[in-house]
């Protein structure tokens, strides 16, 4: 029967190939589009964990409608948070200032994405690990030592293959000794988290920003579950230091990375569902292509069906032959589609690394084969139930 089916398909190679192409595109697009959607949500998930799930960012907010300028965040605020005895949910605190400047090493000049001045707690809270060398210490902060930890991108730009640890670089006229290089985090979006220089807070304030306000205060909660508690503790303490009575008029904002990113994750889910729907439609169109081709084939071979029936072919044989053909079309088409989808997902699409969902491969293949059977059965049934004489008279 399979041999008959192959012969039947081979009799019209171009047509069979085009039909298969329809199924192939359907299956491949299901696999590929779902992989792209999945890939983007995997990337979001990764960035959530890499940010540290229990970190909170406090930034100053210009209070709208208030005549007096909002009180900026200061190192004192950070100290108040760190030294609060009645806030067990706060594990560590790191005030952050950011600036920009050009770094020089020998005659290499490079402008890193960000220059960060902070406390050592920053590394843990932001989930940053050193690859070579070490972090700077609390002692370095106290003594305003001119030391720096480089992100991997910055290190590569300035030092190429050289080991940066122990070397001296100059940023904005201030010499810094490189004490460590961070492990590559990888880009999660538009900016490169590896393109940074991190130095002790007072050093950066002294050299660049001055001892005024800080940009952010990074707070690490004692656990992921304690973030809500930490958030209310922070609010309470800072309302005290800023002398704000009404929580609605707070001149600072606390953002929780996790909630931010889970919002982004749900967007990517919608995105995946949309992509999947588009792909499913193309799979359906492929299925209709099979019906169409099988109808044409049946019509074209009506006379042959009549001859076979006159020779005593049972209904099941005729049915089986056409079903075998349509199933073969869809199996081969779907098989090639799986191949194309899996191969295609090795290339990144618009910056997203596709991650194939195994269920989508099985599902798309199964659905395509089922479609072949389902859509093939209508023409096959029509062929099998023809009366021999009517089939024979068919022109």
């Amino acid at each position, binding site marked *: 029967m399979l041999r008959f089916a192959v012969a039947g398909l081979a*009799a019209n190679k171009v047509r069979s190939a085009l039909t298969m192409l329809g199924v192939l595109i359907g299956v491949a697009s299901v696999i590929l589009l779902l992989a792209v959607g999945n890939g983007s949500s995997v990337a979001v998930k990764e960035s959530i964990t890499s940010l540290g799930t229990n970190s909170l960012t406090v930034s100053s907010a210009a209070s709208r409608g208030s005549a007096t300028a909002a009180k900026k965040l200061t190192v004192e605020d950070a100290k108040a948070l760190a030294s609060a005895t009645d806030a067990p949910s706060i594990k560590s605190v790191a005030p952050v200032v950011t600036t920009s400047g050009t770094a020089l090493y020998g005659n290499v000049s490079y402008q890193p994405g960000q220059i960060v001045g902070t406390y050592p707690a920053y590394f843990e809270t932001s989930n940053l690990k050193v690859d070579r060398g070490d972090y700077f210490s609390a002692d370095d902060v106290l003594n305003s030592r001119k030391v720096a930890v480089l992100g991997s991108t910055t290190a590569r730009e300035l030092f190429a293959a050289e080991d940066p640890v122990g070397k001296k670089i100059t940023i904005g006229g201030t010499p810094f000794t490189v004490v460590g290089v961070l492990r590559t985090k990888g880009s999660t979006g538009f900016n490169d988290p590896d393109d940074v220089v991190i130095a002790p807070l007072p050093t950066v304030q002294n050299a660049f920003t001055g001892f005024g306000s800080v940009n952010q205060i990074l707070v690490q909660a004692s656990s992921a579950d304690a973030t809500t508690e930490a958030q209310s503790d922070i609010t309470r303490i800072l309302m005290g230091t800023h002398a704000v009575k009404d929580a609605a008029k707070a001149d600072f904002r606390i953002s929780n990375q996790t909630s931010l990113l889970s919002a982004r994750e749900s967007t990517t889910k919608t995105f995946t569902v949309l992509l999947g729907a588009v792909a499913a439609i193309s799979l359906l169109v492929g299925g209709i292509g099979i019906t169409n081709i099988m109808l044409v084939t049946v019509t074209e071979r009506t*006379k*042959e069906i*009549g*001859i*076979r*029936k*006159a*020779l*005593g*072919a*049972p*209904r099941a*044989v005729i049915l089986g032959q056409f079903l075998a053909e349509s199933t073969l079309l869809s199996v081969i088409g779907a098989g090639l589609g799986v191949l194309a989808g899996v191969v295609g997902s090795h290339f990144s699409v618009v910056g997203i690394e596709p991650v194939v969902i195994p269920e989508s491969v099985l599902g798309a293949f199964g659905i395509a084969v089922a479609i072949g059977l389902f859509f093939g059965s209508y023409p096959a049934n029509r062929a099998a*139930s023809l*009366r*021999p*004489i009517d089939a*024979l008279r068919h022109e």
Partner: protein
Amino acid sequence: MRTAKPPVIQIRRVTKSYGHGDAVVHALRGPLTGGGEPLGVDLDIAEGDYVAVMGSSGSGKSTLMNILGCLDVPTSGRYLLDGTDVGHLDEGQLALVRNRKIGFVFQSFNLVPRTTALAQVELPLAYAGVRAAERRRRAMAALGLVGLADRAGHKPNQLSGGQQQRVAVARALVTAPAMLLADEPTGNLDSRSTGEVLGIIDGLNARGRTVVVITHEDEVALHAKRVVRLVDGAIVSDVRQAPVDGPPPAPAAAAGVVA
């Protein structure tokens, strides 16, 4: 008429008409009543008989044959094959009857396109569930019988009209059916091939098979034991030339043709 065996074929008041209203064509109608209503065709064919059906073009010969071969259903009337009403059989049983009991040679050959002569002849055996090796052996034997053993690998478009007709004959007799229905099996053959094919059919009849042949040629009709003539869908004459249980009258007839 002997009553030892019931006839294999019994047709009772069968009519076949195409179209509706004014455009209706009565392809098979039998005698008319006084009011012009068709009464339908009655025909009995005994086992082992050899019937030639003659008549002008359009007289309903093929229509009758298609009904006998269970390929078409009559508009009205009953068809009893071996005592069973064919109208009561379902699809599967009909397929079985077509496959096991009847060998059909079409007026227009009706070979399966793009299929070799050998595969054509193997088809009915395949549907009967005969195993490949056996199938091949019997198909080759049947092709040998019609003198086409050397054309086994040819496809219909590589065969002459007469060769195609002989493949069709080989296909009809390969299953050794109890009934051979042939619609002008010699229409495209020269007199020598005609003689060969008729020889095969005579041989089958001599071994007890029932044969119905449609023909326009008198020399073919001479081979039959009985000649039925159709005019406008009705039987106008039914002449017995030889007894049912005797041998086919071929040798004498053949001699007559040569003379």
